[in-house]
């Protein structure tokens, strides 16, 4: 043990937050996203010796998606069921200083309900669109990084994101949830 695992952690831990975003959306029913993140890193560490550089964010996302799919296949469940987050999990983003903020209770409740509805509607999209929206809009990947993680052309990602966003907005409108309507 020594330099190799430290080099691995130095190279990959900065991306923990984006892997977490991917894992939360990719985790199947009954699958703990934290376990999925840990398994992703262990799998990545096992393959770090043969890793030839490239974009580590895309590499980690590809591993995370593969782990989620594999586990979903094993469980014979849909891999992209988006878990309904508990209310404390959908509080607005914590501030950089770690403070709790002073969000109005009503705002918090509304935000929680909205996130639950968004998760439900997102789960209704076709898997390719869900994957692209999850990577680009939720986890903050560029279209090129998402294309690398998914092994498809960048244009395909853009098209799927566009179609997925429109469908998501339509589903939310049908459900009576409004988001950023101009």
């Amino acid at each position: 043990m020594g330099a190799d695992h430290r080099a691995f952690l130095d190279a990959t831990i900065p991306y923990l937050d984006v892997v977490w975003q991917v894992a939360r959306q990719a985790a199947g029913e009954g699958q703990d996203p934290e376990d999925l993140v840990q398994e992703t890193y262990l799998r990545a560490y096992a393959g770090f010796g043969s890793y030839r550089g490239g974009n580590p964010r895309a590499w980690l996302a590809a591993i995370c998606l593969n782990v989620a799919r594999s586990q979903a296949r094993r469980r014979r469940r849909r891999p992209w069921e988006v878990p309904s987050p508990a209310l404390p999990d959908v509080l607005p983003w914590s501030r950089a200083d770690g403070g709790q903020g002073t969000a109005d209770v009503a705002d918090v409740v509304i935000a929680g309900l909205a996130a639950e509805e968004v998760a439900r509607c997102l789960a209704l999209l076709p898997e390719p669109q869900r994957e692209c929206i999850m990577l680009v809009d939720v986890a903050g990947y560029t279209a090129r990084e998402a294309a690398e993680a998914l092994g498809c052309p960048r244009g395909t990602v853009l098209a799927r994101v566009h179609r997925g966003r429109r469908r998501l907005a339509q589903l939310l409108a049908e459900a009576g949830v409004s988001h950023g309507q101009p």
Partner: protein
Amino acid sequence: MDSHDRLLAAFLAGDLDPAEARRCDEHLLECEPCWRAVREDRAGRQAAQVLRQPAPPGLADRVAFAVEVAATARTAAQRQPCPPARSRWRGRPGRRLHRRLAGAGMLAVGVAVTLTMTLLLGGHQTGSVPAAVAAVARYAQAIPPPGRDQQSYPAGRGAPVEVGRPVTVTAGGQPIVLRTWRLGRTEAVVAVSDHPFPMPADAQGVPGRGMAWTAQVGTLALYCVNGSTSELVAAPVPAAELAALAARLPLA
């Protein structure tokens, strides 16, 4: 997706050159279906962003610890001579482990840390210390000592204070929850598992405590009580003092 939609997607992604983007802008002013598509795209993007969450505190520590345990296990597996029953793995254990996993199709089903640890270790022992115990000891060794200016809690009457957040790992096939407590200037790790912690080779049984044992791993003293819920306390104190220290910790 038709060419119209592709053009819109490229426009929204900022892929169009200035002249094309200007033409698209002008078109949007006149074409209600396209303008609706743009509004829906923006609304969908904003809605999806509601799902963003920061990673939970402690997840980075948990991941780093799991990787460190895997690295320890890998090193131990490389150093240990292979037993006869596994002689076919001799030479290049990493590659053959991987091949075996792939052949069995087990890696593809999301190998849990349990399996990773078990296979990487080639058993459950790291030298004379079982993997689960070694993982707890490694975690306890990684905790930095309290600084000189850190608040000291009177050893005689102070209540234990939890440091950080619980970390969950699996080692030697055994799920373990690790908590760190501070008592005075001493920090102790309390590991809890549903499975008993195996005794290291040089551990001593504790008279009258059933499955309890004590051991020394490096500078750490270990004190374990196995039962329906097993607890292992690890702290950098003399072995003779650990039982008294453990008595002040919130054990089951």
